[in-house]
């Protein structure tokens, strides 16, 4: 009887530590964040008065917030689209390669595995005005030297460029796995029907890949919202806030100005944006195939 009891509760006992950890570090921060977003909360002052919606009102009336929202939108959409386009192109090319595929693939894994802090610092070094190697290439092409990261117009594109360098390989590897999973039959049928290479790509490859494409785009979008390390290393949100994304704004307000309450309000808004974006996408596509899988 005792043994039977243990058998019944066994699965739950085994799960408990992991579930408790997940609950502790997700529910508590969220509730706490929600609470202090209605407070004037500074870690160094004892008085933490409730101020109602003041933080949110201030947020929506501040130019800095709308600017950060715009920059986040530009950063996320341009890097994800570029990474997808380049990644898909490379995956198709690599898939047609007879030999050397594995070698290329293993080289392409390197950017993904690199610490974003290292990537950020190396790109900052390469983009340096005086001794950056990028300017050497630019000059030998006949253009003039540029201070990429301190130019308000170029800093954001430079950041996107860095992100594209690091994460295009990720797109490529996922899409390559998808390409390899497509059976031969639809291609044979397309060939019999006399479809051109381009037609085959549009009408056979893309539809067959659609689910993986959606998931790859989703994963990269989620991650692009997180960008922090590279901004920290390359621009620190500058020049004049032109690379200050929402995540950077949270960090700035929290740990530079010690306005935790205000930072928390930014977090809540950021969460709402991400969750509504995902709900919208997931309503359109059954990504997890919850219906069919279980």
């Amino acid at each position, binding site marked *: 009887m005792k043994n039977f009891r243990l058998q019944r509760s066994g699965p739950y006992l085994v799960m408990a530590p992991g579930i408790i950890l997940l609950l502790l570090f997700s529910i508590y921060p969220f509730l706490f964040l929600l609470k202090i977003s209605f407070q004037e909360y500074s870690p160094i002052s004892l008085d933490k008065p409730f101020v109602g919606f003041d933080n949110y009102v201030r947020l929506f009336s501040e130019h800095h917030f709308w600017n950060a929202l715009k920059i986040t939108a530009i950063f996320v959409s341009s890097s994800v689209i570029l990474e997808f386009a380049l990644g898909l192109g490379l995956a198709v090319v690599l898939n047609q390669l007879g030999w050397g595929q594995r070698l290329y693939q293993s080289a392409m894994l390197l950017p993904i595995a690199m610490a974003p802090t290292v990537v950020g*610092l190396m790109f*900052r*070094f390469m983009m340096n005005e005086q001794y950056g190697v990028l300017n*050497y290439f630019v000059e030998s092409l006949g253009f003039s030297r540029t201070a990429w990261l301190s130019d308000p117009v170029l800093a954001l594109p430079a950041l996107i460029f860095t992100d594209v360098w690091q994460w295009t390989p990720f797109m490529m590897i996922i899409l390559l796995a998808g390409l390899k999973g497509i059976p031969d039959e639809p291609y044979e049928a397309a060939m019999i029907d006399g479809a051109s290479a381009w037609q085959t790509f549009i009408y056979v490859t893309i539809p067959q890949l659609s689910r993986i494409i959606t998931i790859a785009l989703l994963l990269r979008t989620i991650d692009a919202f997180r960008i922090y*390390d590279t901004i*920290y290393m390359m621009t620190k949100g500058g020049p004049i806030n032109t690379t200050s994304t929402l995540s950077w704004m949270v960090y700035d307000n929290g740990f530079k100005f010690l306005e935790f309450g205000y930072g928390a309000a930014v977090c809540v808004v950021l969460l709402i944006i991400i969750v509504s974006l995902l709900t919208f996408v997931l309503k359109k596509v059954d990504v*997890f195939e919850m219906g069919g899988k279980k």
Partner: protein
Amino acid sequence: MIGRKPVSLRITNHTIVIIALIFFMFPVLWMLLTSLKNQIDAFTTVPKWTFAVTFDNYQTVLIERDFLKYLLNSLYVSALSTVLAVMLGSGIAYPFARYKLKGANHVLTWILTLRIVPPIVSILPIYLLFSNVGLLDSYTSLILMYTFMNLPLATWLLYGFFKDIPGEIEESALVDGCNRFTAFFRVVFPIIGPGLVSAGLLSFIFAWNEFLFANILSGPTVRTAPVGLNEYATPVSVLWGQIAAAGTMIVLPIAIITIILQRKMVSGLTMGAVKG
């Protein structure tokens, strides 16, 4: 597949791939070269491709600037949190894959949604939490954080692997006199080895590279390598040779593991996507 590709197409394909390879490898190579240059060779308007190789940067960084200690801190924190994430992840994934548990779908979806939350969102409360219990600048805080960070992915990857094992294998072990626990360790465990390696590898890389939490939660005692690296990039003087050397030492171990375990890495990265 269908016949051989025309020669012109094959040449175009190889050209594209080689250009891509140069583009994606150049920054890594440039870092390695910079780390082996002396101060004068590193700071030139026209890049120097040939130079006298020196290991001074490595020596300075490792010995005078405590980088060895930071690397060991990183190793300790990443290894321990990886073991924990894989263990706790198996603990969640295995029962869900093996038993019909009520609400399994909901719990698994909830775990997956945790990956969606940007880490920056939890940094303010987590900082206050650890500072209240006096755990700032401790290994415990970083290990707990990284375990939490990697647990959703580990759970989902392992869930996929456990699902693929037919229940009969275990049942026959039970008939042969194993109990649930010994059946797990003797029969299931060896089969999902590859899954454990995939989940462990990704967890280790994420923990090793992590900067946001490390920067906020760690002080001088448990400073990890990415945070240490940042110290060399002061606004006043940026010591690129030393940064490149430290950067190379952060990347090198990961690069070696990635090349050795290439298949596991690819299956880990794609399984989340392919299997959902």
